[in-house]
């Protein structure tokens, strides 16, 4: 058995627009045994409450930051007396291809990176973490901020005597800071990313009648929404046109390891968040639908996981429910593409020389011209069209 290693749990970077975060709640206390991947704190990023997971297995030695304190990304939050994952023999330094590429670009020494993937594999996130640790100042800016309840009070039953919610200054502050976070990310996107835009209109009659048949015999809880089919088609198309799935890092494209589909979720009190549906291209539609429900509900009530905030490889925005025909989106850096779906509308449509009425949807692509050209983007939209016309293959 090797000696005990000490690991620090740092304020994670949960998105390109995050500069600092507040420890909203500790989920562990000194003396607790934790395993890698366990949620150990709830971090308030201004956009959402995120459960941050430990990169270490071991015993919590001390907590360095009290709840309610805002600190910069990279600040040590806790000390963990780590148990080496393979106490006997040397640690294998296996790294994923994306992690290796990133490490080379960011100048990170892989042998010094703690792997959190399966069997200690170094993942891209670990490299980013390590790079941030090197560059981020460790000064603790202990601007005290009152801790907030994890979610807004939800009424479980309507009561006539129940008062209207009290004005919530804390909530107002959060909306202000969320607006600033979106402003930073979007301004950076428009400043740095030369967007190009494409759009196409897709006949949805095959997809909708397929859905109708499928949903007919199911209870409401098992039914699929058109949104699930649209998301799956976008994810599959991203697999087929992989140059749109990944990141632009230091003047080069780094492909995503899988399609982790960011889904733009509008929050009820304003604001926007785009957490990832992991492995969206490989999941069955039922599974994807359940995951979507879960993700949207957690995004709105306050519990997303850190991996969901950092690992999206391409994002989809679906403004169909708001009634608009098309949306030309702004790419979320460092991603290189954003897919937009509008409302499914009945429109005149020519088929085989005859005019009929069909449900159609406008699909758009905003893509980073540094990473791809219009030809690649066009292939993506054609693939979405093909898939939606063959819903049984999704």
């Amino acid at each position: 058995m090797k000696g005990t290693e000490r690991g620090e749990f740092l304020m994670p970077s949960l998105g390109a627009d995050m500069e600092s975060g507040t420890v909203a709640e500790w989920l562990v206390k000194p003396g607790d045994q934790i395993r890698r991947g366990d949620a150990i704190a709830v971090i308030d990023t201004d956009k959402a409450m995120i459960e941050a997971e430990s990169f270490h297995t071991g015993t919590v030695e001390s907590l360095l930051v009290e709840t309610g304190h805002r600190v910069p990304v990279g600040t040590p939050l806790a000390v963990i007396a780590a148990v080496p994952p393979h106490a006997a023999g040397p640690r294998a330094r296996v790294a994923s291809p994306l992690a290796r590429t990133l490490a080379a670009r960011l100048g990170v020494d892989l042998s010094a990176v703690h792997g959190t993937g399966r069997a200690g594999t170094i993942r891209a996130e670990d490299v980013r973490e390590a790079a941030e640790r090197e560059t981020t100042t460790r000064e603790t800016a202990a601007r005290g901020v009152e801790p907030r309840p994890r979610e807004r009070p939800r009424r479980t039953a309507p009561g006539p005597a129940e008062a209207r919610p009290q004005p919530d200054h804390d909530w107002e502050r959060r909306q202000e800071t969320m607006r600033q976070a979106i402003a930073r990310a979007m301004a950076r996107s428009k400043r740095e990313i030369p967007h190009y835009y494409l759009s196409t209109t897709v006949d949805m009659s095959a997809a909708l009648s397929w859905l109708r048949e499928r949903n007919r015999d199911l209870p409401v809880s098992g039914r699929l929404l058109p949104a699930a089919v649209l998301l799956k088609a976008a994810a599959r198309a991203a697999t087929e046109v992989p140059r749109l799935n990944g990141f632009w890092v230091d003047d080069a494209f780094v492909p995503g390891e899988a399609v982790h589909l960011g889904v733009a979720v509008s929050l009820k009190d304003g604001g926007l968040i785009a957490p990832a549906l992991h492995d969206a291209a490989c999941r069955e539609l039922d599974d994807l639908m359940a995951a979507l429900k879960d993700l949207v509900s957690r995004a709105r009530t306050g519990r997303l996981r850190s991996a969901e905030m950092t690992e999206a490889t391409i994002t989809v925005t679906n403004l169909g429910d708001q009634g608009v025909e098309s949306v030309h989106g702004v790419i979320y850096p460092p991603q290189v593409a954003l897919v937009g779906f509008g409302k499914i509308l009945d429109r005149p449509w020519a088929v085989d020389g005859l005019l009929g009425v069909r449900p159609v949807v406008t699909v758009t692509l905003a893509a980073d011209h540094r990473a791809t050209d219009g030809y690649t983007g066009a292939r993506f939209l054609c693939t979405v069209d093909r898939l939606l016309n063959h819903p049984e293959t999704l």
Partner: protein
Amino acid sequence: MTPQRARELVEAALTRVAPDADLAALAPDADIREALELDSLDFLTYVETLSESSGCRIEEDDYPAFTTVAGGADFLVAHASAP
């Protein structure tokens, strides 16, 4: 099902998808999707909640009835067997 009970179930289901909504101010014939800013997922959750609480089977073809408070309550009165 009595109109009173149907109305209670509708309000409870709405409260689930729109916890901050002022239901007293909501007109019975207003489109809840617009009035309460429900998206398609919220609406599905609403119908799902009602289907479970009332024990009433609700087809996709029946969804339009549920876009208003009055329509949803009337549907339950007509179709739900439970008291």
